[in-house]
């Protein structure tokens, strides 16, 4: 039986980021989390876990977030999954590429927790249940 909480896949090679995002987003009790530490693992976990939303870092080993984004959008299972890019890269070219590759939104590091929560709620809705 599927949990009433929404499932978020957090993808970042930084344990600091993984832990802080889980702590900040976990406070509401509306979400459960799956983590991945690079783009390749992100694709595997996204296909296996079918998260409701993906938070995707850009600069990662093995496969970058932008490459993973392209791959996720090419797959049937993850084509419609909302994806928020989380990155230090504020250059316009990077932002354009992310939107071109199919991300739904973009937040800059250091992350403003209120902004991140607002964007997640905007994509998932404020209620926890489907």
């Amino acid at each position: 039986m599927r949990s009433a909480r929404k499932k978020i896949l957090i993808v970042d090679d930084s344990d600091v980021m993984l832990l802080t995002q889980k702590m900040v987003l976990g406070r509401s009790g509306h979400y459960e989390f799956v983590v991945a530490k690079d783009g390749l693992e992100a694709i595997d976990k996204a296909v296996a876990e079918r998260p409701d939303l993906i938070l995707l870092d850009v600069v990662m080993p093995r496969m970058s977030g932008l490459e993973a984004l392209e791959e996720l959008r090419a797959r049937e299972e993850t084509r419609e999954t909302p994806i928020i890019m989380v990155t230090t890269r504020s250059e316009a070219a990077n932002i354009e590429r992310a939107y071109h590759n199919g991300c739904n939104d973009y937040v800059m590091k250091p992350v403003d927790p209120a902004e991140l929560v607002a964007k997640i709620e905007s994509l998932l809705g404020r209620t926890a249940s489907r």
Partner: protein
Amino acid sequence: MKKHLDEHGKYVQRVQEDTRKYIEELFSENERLRLANTSLELAKRQGEQQLLAATAELDHARYENEKLRHQFDDIQSERERYYEHYLSLEQQHANLANLYVASFRLHGTLDRTELMGVIQEIVINLIGSEELIVFERGSDDAFTPAVCMGVDEEIGRRLASGDAGFAGATSSGEIWISDKPASADGELSALVPLRADDRVVGMIAIFRLLPQKPGLEPIDRELFDLLGSQAGTALYLTRLHAEARKAAP
């Protein structure tokens, strides 16, 4: 002549009759008007009373409306205060989460390389800079760059060998924060002495912040305090751990 007098008499009688009828009609009309006036007066009085009652009711409704509007404004103000308080609490929670995670990760390893990685992660992801150097104090008391990210190692060597601000931070153990945002290549935003038991064992030099970060905030100061004490201790422990492993048979 008699005929003329008869005719005149009849005329007078006719006039008298007409006058009498006219006067009767006037009296009737007068009576009708008097009754109508009385009726109108009555209606007017009733109307005035109703108007007074309606005015009183309207005044009361206006008063109630004004009262409700003030109550609504009070509730709205209180709601805004609660919401600001809620946002403040949420920000405090996020700040505490950052501090907890930083502390947890700093003390989660005895491996020097991994510790350096954690310090970088904290500076990049929580403070917001990709230009930093982590210095270590050697046995000769010289500070040498152990990790360089986003800046030339030569800048680090120049800082450690001749910069007055750097020397001041290493001797005082006090955090130094620039009063204006760093904009040029090699320009400092902050110096964070890493301390272990009142001795400065290292230094974090932070240069330019990420473009989307306008300046350092109070939470960054708290993170600097945490790095200064806990990263310093962790760095000292990794050294002891390495020495112990080297010495072990």
